[in-house]
C-alpha cells in the first residue's frame, strides 16, 4: 500500500488536472475537424460546385429543356440570352449550336459524360496504382524495385499520344476511352501510395498486428489502408480532374467521345469553326470544363489541408 502522503499528492495532482482550464476548453478532435472544414473556403466552394454539377448530371433528363441530340437547321446558331440580338430568346437560354441543338441541354448532358469518365477512369487507375503501390511499399526489396521500374516505364510514355494512338487503333467507344485512360494514369496513385505505405508500415501498430500473427492481407487491409486513406482521396481527386481534362483533349482532337454525343471537349471542337462570329460556342463548354476541374482540385487541396494541415504546400 502507498504511503498516505503519496495518495494525497496524487489527489492534488489529479484535482489540478481536472481544474486545468486550458484543457477543459480544448475542443474535441471532431469539433476541431468541423472547424477546419468550415473555415476552409476552397474546400467549401469546391465541394459546393462539384455537388451542383453532380446534381445537374444526375437530374439531366428533368433539368434539360430539350433533347440534346435534336437537330433543326432552321433554328441554328441562336445566341445566348445575354447577347443583344433579336434572335436570342428564353426557349434556348444558352442558344443553339451549328446544327440547331439546344446548347443548355447539351451542356447538362455533357456533365454526365465528363463525370462518368472522370470517376470510372479514376477507379480503374486507383485500383491498379493502389495495388502495386501498397505492394511496393509493404514488401519493399525486389517488389519495390520492380514496381519502381514499371512506374518509370509508364512515365516515359507520352500519355496524350499513346491514348490517341491506342483509341484510334482499337476503336473509340466510351468504355474504350475510359479503359485506356484508366490504364494510363495510375502512376501518381502508385507513387503516393508507395511512399505513404513505407511511412506507415514501420509504425508500432503494424508491428503489433504482426506480433499478433495477423496475415499480410489483413494487415494491409485493416492497418495500412485506413491510415493512407486521406492521401488516397487527395490523389483520387487529382486523377479524376486529370482524366476529365484528358478526355476533353481526346474528344477535342476527334478521337474521344464521338458526335453527336455532347462531350464538353467535343463541343469546344465543334464550336471552333464558328469562333469568329459566335465565340460563346467555345466559351460556354470550356468554362464548364474549367469550373468542374477547378472545383475538383479545390476539393482535393481542401481535403489535404483539413486532414493533414502540417503538409500544406
Amino acid at each position, binding site marked *: 500500500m502507498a504511503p498516505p502522503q503519496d495518495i494525497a499528492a496524487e489527489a492534488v495532482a489529479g484535482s489540478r488536472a481536472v481544474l486545468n482550464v486550458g484543457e477543459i476548453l480544448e475542443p474535441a478532435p471532431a469539433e476541431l475537424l468541423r472547424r477546419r472544414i468550415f473555415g476552409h473556403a476552397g474546400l467549401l466552394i469546391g465541394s459546393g460546385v462539384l455537388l451542383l454539377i453532380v446534381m445537374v448530371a444526375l437530374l439531366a433528363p428533368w433539368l434539360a429543356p430539350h433533347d440534346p441530340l435534336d437537330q433543326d437547321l432552321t433554328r441554328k446558331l441562336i445566341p445566348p440570352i445575354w447577347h443583344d440580338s433579336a434572335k436570342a430568346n428564353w426557349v434556348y437560354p444558352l442558344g443553339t449550336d451549328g446544327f440547331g441543338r439546344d446548347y443548355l441541354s447539351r451542356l447538362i448532358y455533357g456533365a454526365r459524360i465528363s463525370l462518368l469518365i472522370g470517376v470510372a477512369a479514376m477507379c480503374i487507375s486507383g485500383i491498379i496504382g493502389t495495388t502495386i503501390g501498397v505492394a511496393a511499399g509493404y514488401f519493399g526489396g525486389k517488389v519495390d524495385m520492380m514496381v519502381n521500374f514499371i512506374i518509370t516505364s509508364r512515365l*516515359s510514355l*507520352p500519355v496524350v499520344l499513346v491514348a490517341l494512338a491506342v483509341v484510334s487503333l482499337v476503336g473509340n467507344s466510351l468504355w474504350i476511352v475510359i479503359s485506356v485512360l484508366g490504364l494510363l494514369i495510375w502512376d501518381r496513385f502508385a507513387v503516393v501510395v508507395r511512399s505513404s505505405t513505407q511511412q506507415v508500415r514501420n509504425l508500432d501498430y503494424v508491428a503489433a498486428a504482426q506480433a499478433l500473427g495477423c496475415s499480410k492481407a489483413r494487415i494491409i487491409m485493416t492497418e495500412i489502408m485506413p491510415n493512407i486513406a486521406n492521401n488516397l482521396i487527395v490523389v483520387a481527386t487529382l486523377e479524376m480532374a486529370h482524366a476529365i481534362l484528358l478526355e476533353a483533349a481526346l474528344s477535342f482532337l476527334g478521337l474521344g467521345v464521338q458526335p453527336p454525343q455532347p462531350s464538353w471537349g467535343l463541343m469546344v471542337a465543334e464550336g471552333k469553326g464558328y469562333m469568329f462570329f459566335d465565340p460563346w460556342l467555345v466559351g460556354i463548354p470550356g468554362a464548364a470544363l474549367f469550373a468542374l476541374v477547378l472545383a475538383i482540385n479545390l476539393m482535393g487541396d481542401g481535403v489535404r489541408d483539413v486532414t493533414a494541415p502540417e503538409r500544406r504546400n
Partner: protein
Amino acid sequence: MLIYACKRLGVAVLVAVAVSLLTFSLIYLSGDPAMALAGEAATQQDIEYIRKFYGYDRPLAVQYADWLTKALTGNFGYSHYLRQDVAEIIFSRLPVTMILGACALVFALTLSIPLGVVAAMRPNTMIDRFALTLAVVGQALPSFWFALILIFWFGIVWRLLPISGTETWLNFIMPSVALGYYVTPAVMRLTRAGMLEVLASDYIRTARAKGLRPPVVLFKHALRNAVIPVVSLAAVQFGFMLGGSIVIETIFAINGLGYLAWESIQRGDLPVMQAIVLILACFYIVLTYLADMLNAFLDPRIRVT
C-alpha cells in the same frame, strides 16, 4: 558517383527496352497488321502475300528484334501513306517542336520562378495568395481551351499575333504561352516551397547576420540552393511538354512532331506513330537521366542512398 551513374544508366536502358516493347506491340493492337495494310477489298491471297512481304509471318520475337535493331540504327521503316522514309519525315519536323518546347519552357520558368521567389519572401500576403490562385487556376485550365481563348483575343479581336504557321518568331508566342502555362503551377509551387525551406535555414541567418546585402543573400545564397530541385523538374516537364505539344500544334497548325503525330493517327500511319512514341519516350528517359545525374552532382546525399 560513377557507380551511381552506371546503376541509373542500367535502369534507363531497361526502361527504354520496356517502352520499345510496348511501342512495338502497337502494331498488333488493331488486330492483323497485314489485313490492315491490304485494305478491305483484299483477297486472302493478297493478305498472305503482304504478310510474307513485310515479314509479319515470322515469330514475334524475331520481328521485334528486327524492328529494334533497325530503329537503333535510325531506320524507322517506311511510311506507306507519305511514301517516304519515316526517319526523314521525323527529323524534318523535330526542330520545330524542339523550338516550341524550348520557348514554352523559357516562358514557364521566367513566369514561375520569380513568382515563387516573391511568394516565399512574403508568405501569406496578397502576392502569395495571388501566386497560389494563379497556380490553382492554371492547373484547371484545359490547354486547348486556353489556346483558343488566346487565338480569339490576340489573333481575332485585337489582331496582334498570327494564329497559325511558323513563319516568324511572332508565330511562336501564343503556342509557347499555351504550352508553357501548364508547367508553371508545378514549378512555382516547388520554387516557393524550396525558398521557404532555405530562407528558414541557419546559413541564411548567418549570411544575414554577417550584414550581407539582402539581394546577395536572396540570389547568391538562397535561390541557388532552392533552385536545384526545380532544374530536374524542368527537365522532366520539358519531356511532358513535347508529348503534350500534340494538342497545341494541332490548334496552331504548327508543322512539328505533334501535328505529324496527329496526322498519322488520323491516317492510321503506324510506322510514323511508333517512331514518334519511341523517340519521345527515349527523349524523356534521357532527360530524366541527365536530371538525376545533375542532382546527384549537386547534392552528394543522393549518390549514397
